[in-house]
Each structure stands twice: as structure tokens, then as C-alpha cells.
């Protein structure tokens, strides 16, 4: 009798350790963060956390810097994601053709993805340095005006987007290439018979068939771009004058520089909701698009 109970519930018993692990490692921090977001806590030993209800959230919604950070987050995310998807698809199409030295090109192309983000940030800081950096040297040799790059409040986000695109486009390209490899060949043969142009084939066959792959790649990247921290922290620390301060960065500053752990937590809860909402929206979009 007992033996059969064990057998019947095998799937539960074997997954139990994993379930517990997930509960401890994922759910607990989230619940704890939500809890702290209702407290005022400065990590002080003498003043214990004090319950303040929703006032952390209200303070945030009244905080100019919070809204600015939200704007910067979306500006950065939308620009980076759009460029990465377009470039990623283009590169995947190029790399899916056969040519000499293809493997070498593929390997070199994937290098940025494996570099340490903070070290990379420091290298890009040197590249962008207005007086002695390579970026301005290149502009000058092309006869263009040197730019301020990271030191200009207007250029800092596009400059950071360039770094992100450089680092992460390969990932999108990699996923798209995998998708391309699975496409059936008959539609192309039929199109060849009909005498369709390469562009026509791309728009009418490749793109629709690739749509699910592109959406998955974009979704994975979206969540990551929203959370970008390392390159911004390593290069500008949110400057100049808050211009590149995203939600993630502001959360860090609130928590570890201002020691306002309650307010930092409430910011992260809002941010968590935002990421979750966007992801659900993407999933919904995906169903709709794939259904169409």
C-alpha cells in the first residue's frame, strides 16, 4: 500500500527538492523585498525598521528623479532593443550563407558577449574619452566634428546603447541563425519557380516563418535590457547629472549609497511589476501575432 502511494506520487517527490530550492531562492527574496518596501530602514543598529505603510511608494511617485529614471530606462531599452533586433536579423541572414572563413567570423563575432562587463565598460570609457579617445580620432579622420559622448547629457544614452548593441547583438543573431536553420526549403523552391526576387522572398517567406523566433529573441533581450546595470555603472554611474540614471541604477543608489533600503525596495517592487507586465504583454502579443 505504502509502496504504491510512493509510486503514484513519484513526480511530486522527485521534484520536491527543486520546488523547495526555487521557493527559498526566488520567492523568499521577492516576498522579503515587498515586505521591506513598507518599512523605513537605514541599516542602523540603533533604529529598527519602522512600518510606514505606502509612504515609500508615494514618495517615489512624487520624486522627479524616479520619473526621470523611468524615462531613461525606456529610452535606453527601446533604442537598444530595436537596433539589436534589426541588426541581429541582418547579421544572421549574412552569416547563414556559406562563405570561406565563416567559422572564424562567427567566433570573433561572439567575443563581446563573453567579455567581463565592467572591464568592457572601462575600455569603452577610454574609447569615448573626448580628448584622447579612439572614437573622436575616427570622427576627426573622417572630417567630422568630435563629440562629447558619455560626457554630454544628450548623447550619453545613445552612446551607452552603442555599447549594449555591440555586446548583445550577437546573441540575437545567434538565436535567429538557429531559427533560420530550421526553415523548410520547399517555399523557397516554389518561389524560385515563380521567379521571386531575393527581397520578395525575405519579406514573404523568411520573415513570417521567422516571426516566432524573432519574438522569443526580442523577449529574452527585453528583460535583460531593462535590467542593464553593469555598463552604465562602470562608465557613467548615472551621470552626467542623472542623465543616464535608469531605474536599476537609482535603486542601487537609494539602497547602497543613501541607505534608504525601504524606498529602494519599493522602487524594485515597482520595477518588478513593470518587467512582469511587459513580459506578459509580449507573450500576449506573441500569441496574437502567431495566430494571425
Amino acid at each position, binding site marked *: 500500500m505504502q509502496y504504491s502511494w510512493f509510486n503514484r*506520487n513519484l513526480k511530486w517527490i522527485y521534484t520536491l527538492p527543486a520546488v523547495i530550492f526555487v521557493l527559498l531562492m526566488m520567492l523568499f527574496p521577492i516576498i522579503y523585498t515587498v515586505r521591506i518596501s513598507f518599512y523605513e530602514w537605514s541599516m542602523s543598529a540603533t533604529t529598527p525598521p519602522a512600518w510606514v505603510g505606502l509612504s515609500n511608494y508615494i514618495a517615489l511617485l512624487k520624486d522627479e528623479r524616479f520619473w526621470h529614471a523611468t524615462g531613461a530606462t525606456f529610452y535606453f531599452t527601446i533604442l537598444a532593443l530595436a537596433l539589436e533586433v534589426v541588426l541581429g536579423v541582418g547579421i544572421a541572414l549574412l552569416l547563414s550563407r556559406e562563405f570561406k572563413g565563416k567559422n572564424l567570423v562567427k567566433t570573433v563575432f561572439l567575443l563581446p558577449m563573453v567579455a567581463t562587463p565592467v572591464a568592457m565598460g572601462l575600455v569603452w570609457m577610454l574609447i569615448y*574619452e573626448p580628448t584622447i579617445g579612439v572614437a573622436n580620432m575616427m570622427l576627426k579622420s573622417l572630417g567630422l566634428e*568630435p563629440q562629447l559622448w*558619455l*560626457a554630454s547629457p544628450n548623447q550619453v544614452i545613445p552612446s551607452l546603447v552603442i555599447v549594449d548593441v555591440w555586446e548583445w547583438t550577437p546573441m540575437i543573431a545567434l538565436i535567429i541563425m538557429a531559427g533560420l536553420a530550421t526553415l523548410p526549403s520547399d517555399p523557397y523552391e516554389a518561389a524560385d519557380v515563380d521567379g521571386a526576387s531575393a527581397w520578395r522572398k525575405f519579406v514573404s517567406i523568411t520573415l513570417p516563418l521567422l516571426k516566432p523566433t524573432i519574438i522569443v529573441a526580442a523577449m529574452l533581450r527585453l528583460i535583460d535590457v531593462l535590467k542593464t546595470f553593469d555598463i552604465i555603472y562602470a562608465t557613467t554611474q548615472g*551621470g552626467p*547629472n542623472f542623465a543616464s540614471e535608469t531605474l536599476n541604477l537609482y535603486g542601487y543608489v537609494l539602497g547602497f*549609497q543613501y*541607505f534608504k533600503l525601504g524606498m529602494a525596495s519599493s522602487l524594485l517592487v515597482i520595477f518588478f511589476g513593470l518587467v512582469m507586465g511587459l513580459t506578459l504583454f509580449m507573450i500576449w502579443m506573441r500569441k496574437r501575432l502567431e495566430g494571425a
Partner: protein
Amino acid sequence: MKRTMKQWIGVSTTAIMTVTMLAGCGSSGSEAGKDQGGQATATAAATANAKPFAGKTISLVTANHPWADAIKPLLPEFEQETGIKVNVESFFEDQLTQKLTVQFTSGSATPDVFMYRPLQEGKLFYKNGWLQPLDDYAQKAKDYDFNDFSKSAIGSTTVDSKLAGIPIITEQEILYYRKDLLEKAGIPVPKTLDELTAAVKKLHDAKNEMYGFVARGQRSPLVTQVSSFLYSEGADFTNGDKAVINTPEAIKAFTTYGTLLKDYAPPGVLNMSWPQAFGIFAQGKVAFLTDANSLYKNLTDPAKSQVADKVGFAVFPSGKAGSKPYSITSWGLAMNTKSANKDAAWAFIQWASSKDTVLKTQQKGNPGARASVWDNPEGTTGFPAELVPIIKESAKAGVDHDRPTVISVGEARDAVGEIVQKVMTGETNIQPVADKANEALQAIMDKDKTK
């Protein structure tokens, strides 16, 4: 069946979490027990031995700082003399703060003695009850000569009129300049801020990548360096429990600093902290630089600087209120309130900050806080001869803080730094910006009072 299974999961999760938490408590509990045991045996050994501290062990946490490198080879001497064994651990600056914060929050008895940054963390640590006041120890100590420490250095380590730490590294803001350029243009070394501005204008030649002036332009890092401008114009960050960064004097100081950077600094100065500012000066592209004297090696070391033999030092130029650079303790030694070996810990601090030891560490280029060592010709061998009188003079007139002395220093620095950054980005109507920043600073100070 399904429902019971779910309950099962719930119950076992709770059980496991409880067990884990208990285990956590258990281990820290037993550690505390061990410490007490160690102390008991140590006391027993001490009574049996002639050396008062024989058998005691203290833990010392330092930053990765030249002072730590200078003190480590001297430790065997101290251990021989007192019988105290010193265990040293070193960390990078930011890691150090994090480590100390985490350890103290959990009520740890170690480290007994540690390096800390009095103006950045002093008030926070002290208010949290992590720093043992040292007044009694310092006043009673034999042959210690506490009055030998410079007033401004002690001012930096004093919180609520209690001595929270002993100064070990001091620094002042000075003016660095290019001797060759000034000579060629026939300009004397600027003595006032107006003369400085005029000289900067004269030497600025952006077309040929020669810039008049550079200093920190990043929001938070710039605050310490604009402070000397502030004091020299007769202003300050705070006055009693009022924020005063929107007075006409303060606005004049912020505008002077911001305008020098906006009009005469290399491009990209908005993003510069000291490494970038010193870097571009060392490349020979700048005529003037104001920053801490403790960083002089970045300019005089031929391995780092192309203008190593052309760097001049001068006392900070005077404004309406004279020349008032900051003269502060950038690193201090402090004792953990929870330390189990307070007397041994004090014995170490007393030795490390004694005249003899300070003389030895200062000879290795670590500017100490003892007047007698600075007056001793042997005490200044670690510094360029031209820099020594500048240091002495700056220490005399100096102000004992270089940032708002509040608990939330990071937040206050961001509030103040924004005023200068607005000047640098071309905002001409600076009064409202300063008023808003002043409000923010006032709010931070009011909140401090409740802590």
C-alpha cells in the same frame, strides 16, 4: 490526495526554512562562545606573564592603502613589545565599507581596530554605536601627547564632541600648476581666485588642446573639491543645524568653480573624477588643477606623468575670506564598541599613532596629523621639498571638513554636486537650483536629528 500534497509542501518548506534559520543562529552563537573562551584563556595567560597583554590577539582591518603597507613591516616590533598578536586583513575602499557595515550590523566583536573614512562614514558609524569614543584613552595615555595632533585633523574625527577615531592620514586641497607655462607667459603663481581665473584665461588655448584648468566635474566627487572654494569665499555647507548652500557667497563659489570647468576645462569634464583629471594634467594638456595634495605622486612620478619635472605646488588661492582650503583626516583608526579586547586595541592604536610610528610611516609618504613630526626635518623626507611648506601652511588655515557632515553623506553630496553641474551645463539662473538643493540638504539634516 492532491490537496494534502500541497499542504505537505507548505509544511516542509516552513520546516526547512526554520531549520536553516536556527542553524544560522546556532553557528553565530557558537562563534561568540569561542571568542569568550579565547578571552578567558588570554586573561589567565596575562596574569601569569610580565607583559600585560601577552597572549592576546587583536584583529585589524585596513584599506589597501600605502599606510597599511608602511605599518605591516613594523608590526613585529609592536608584537614583541606588548605580546599582542595582530591579525591583519586588507580590503579595497568600497569593499571595506561594505564589510564593516555588514559585520557591525550583525553585532560582531571583530575587528577590534579598523581603518575608516571619518568624513564619509564617521557620523553614520558613530550614531549606529559602532565606534568606541576614545577621549578617555587618549587623555590618560602616558607619553602620547594628544595635543600634538593638528586641530583640524582631530575636528574631522570628532562626532558630537566625542573623539570617534584617531587621525592617521591627512590631506589638504592645493593648487597644482605648470611651472614652465607660467614662466613662458610671465604669469606669477596666482594668490587669489581672481588671479587664478585671469591666469587660466590667458593660458587656455583649446584649438591646440591646451586647457586652462581641470578639476573633478562628476556630481558626487566634485563636492569635496569645491569645498575649499566655498570656505575661501566665506561660505560653508551648513551653519549649525541649517543648510546654507544658497547664500550669495556659496553661489559665487559654485559659479567660480563651475565656470572654470565649463569654459576652460578639457571636453568631457562633466564625467571626470580625480583619476581622469590627474590623467589629463599628467598628459601635459592642462595648466592648473586643484585637488588633494595626497595625490601629488600621480603628477610627479615620471612613469605616470609626462610633466613630472614641471609641476609646481601652491597654497589654495584666497577668496573674499582668505585662503581656506580643507584640511581633513582622510583616514582614521577606530575601535569597535563590541571589541572584547579594548585595552589591547587601544595599546595598538596608541602605538600606531605615536610620534615614533608616525615618523616612520610619514617617511614613506603618508601625511600624518602630528605637528611635531612635520616640524622634524626627518619627518618630511618622504615628500618633495617644495610641497612641505605648502602642506604646513594649508594645515594651519585649514577647515576640518570637505563635505557636509551628515549621516547620509552620499545623498548630501549628490544634492550639492547638482548645483555645480547645472553651472557646467550652462544654466545661468543658479539661485533657484541652489534653493532647491538647499531644501534637499536641509531635509537630510532634519532627518539626521531623528536618528
